[in-house]
């Protein structure tokens, strides 16, 4: 049996339909929308997508910057307890905002054939990868350090200066303070080096007690996290991790974001 035979018979009224529709158009019920309105809609969609991507890049790179400034990014390297403290100290609000942007971005981008033709998981991970890579690249620029230093000089960039003023190096939690010390190498000695912690303490670090030899030699000014046993002002180092420190001098405030 042909498909046509199964189609509904009661609908053979197209000449009448044609007359009705043309009459309504002639009466001015509808007008042709200008081509510009469609172009504008497309431009707004693309602009919205670009704006969301830029915003996500900025916020996620700011998350990386916060971790750098807090100096806690080395924590996952000291085992499960380090990982736990690292996770607790992540700026979750900012991460949540990035996730929300990602969802809105997916909804916007779903209007583009290149996005909706692919399964949601693929498009989501492609967008996530795009945001992650972009923010890592942005993190390597001087954008956030510049804004940060401007905010310290009371010349904050508009709106987000508030966030920059709230961040600074964070003291490890009390449990860590008994075996982790962070700071800059002030002087190299025969037994190791002199460490000036971010909070002004001067300590002598002995490297002969290291469990593994250092991968690369240390030099004055290096920013490090020392794990070991403290006896008076001497630390018998078991592990030394080079950490990223973009601000050599300790900052007076110890605020969380």
């Amino acid at each position: 049996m042909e498909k046509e035979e199964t189609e509904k018979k009661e609908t053979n009224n197209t000449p009448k339909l044609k007359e009705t529709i043309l009459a309504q158009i002639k009466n001015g019920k509808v007008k042709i929308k200008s081509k510009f309105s469609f172009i504008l809609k497309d431009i707004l969609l693309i602009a919205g997508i670009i704006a969301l991507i830029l915003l996500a890049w900025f916020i996620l790179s700011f998350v990386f910057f916060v971790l750098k400034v807090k100096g806690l990014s080395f924590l996952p390297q000291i085992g499960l307890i380090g990982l736990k403290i690292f996770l607790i100290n992540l700026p979750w609000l900012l991460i949540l905002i990035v996730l929300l942007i990602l969802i809105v971005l997916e909804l916007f981008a779903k209007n583009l054939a290149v996005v909706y033709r692919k399964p949601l998981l693929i498009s989501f991970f492609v967008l996530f990868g795009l945001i992650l890579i972009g923010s890592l690249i942005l993190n390597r620029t001087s954008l956030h350090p510049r804004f940060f230093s401007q905010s310290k000089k009371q010349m904050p960039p508009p709106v987000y200066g508030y966030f920059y003023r709230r961040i600074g190096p964070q003291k490890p939690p009390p449990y860590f303070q008994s075996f982790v010390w962070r700071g800059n190498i002030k002087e190299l000695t025969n037994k190791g080096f002199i460490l000036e912690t971010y909070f002004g303490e001067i300590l002598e670090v002995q490297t002969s007690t290291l469990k593994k030899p250092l991968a690369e030699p240390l030099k004055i000014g290096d920013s490090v996290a020392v794990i070991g046993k403290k006896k008076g002002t001497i630390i018998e180092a078991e592990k030394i991790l080079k950490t990223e420190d973009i601000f050599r001098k300790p900052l007076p405030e110890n605020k969380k974001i």
Partner: protein
Amino acid sequence: MKANSNFPQKEAISDEQIATSVQKGNLEDFGELVLRYGKKIQNYLFRFIQTKEEVEDLTQDIFLKAYSNILSFNPKKKFTPWLYQIAHNELVNYLRKKHYLSTKFINLDLDILAAKSVSKNDILKDLENNLKFELIDKNLNKLNFKYRQPFVLFFYENLSYQEISDILKIPISTVGTRIKRAKEIIKKSVNNSESFY
């Protein structure tokens, strides 16, 4: 707005050429598109809505919308999927207004998240070998909207997976999965009714 048609012998003229003529302001040519697609669109709507009056009103709305948006049609592409996209959007809006469809903001169906692609030829061959068209018609109401939409566009309107993907704005692989699932539901329903008698 010009009143006379540009095409005295319309049979040989493509839909795309007529749509281009409408874009240039030839209103009567839009009438030709209504003649060509009026019945098709009504039959399409009848597969989702049962009332004749509702179908007729919605068909009018669809063509008026198509006329209003005619400048968004790209003559380099096919006219049929463009018109069905408008029909689909109007149908969804109508069903939502009548609360026949939920107004979910985000669709997180598993087959949207990730779906295996299913061959179009396999589905057609299987359907034609195993099911009669009138049986498919009778059992169409067993399909919920998410399966019925791609199935109707594929089986009755002869649109390709990619065209259906563009109309419904879902992944191409999901189109295949949903059509396959629709076919399974119909087959099961036909088998059940046959064993009953």
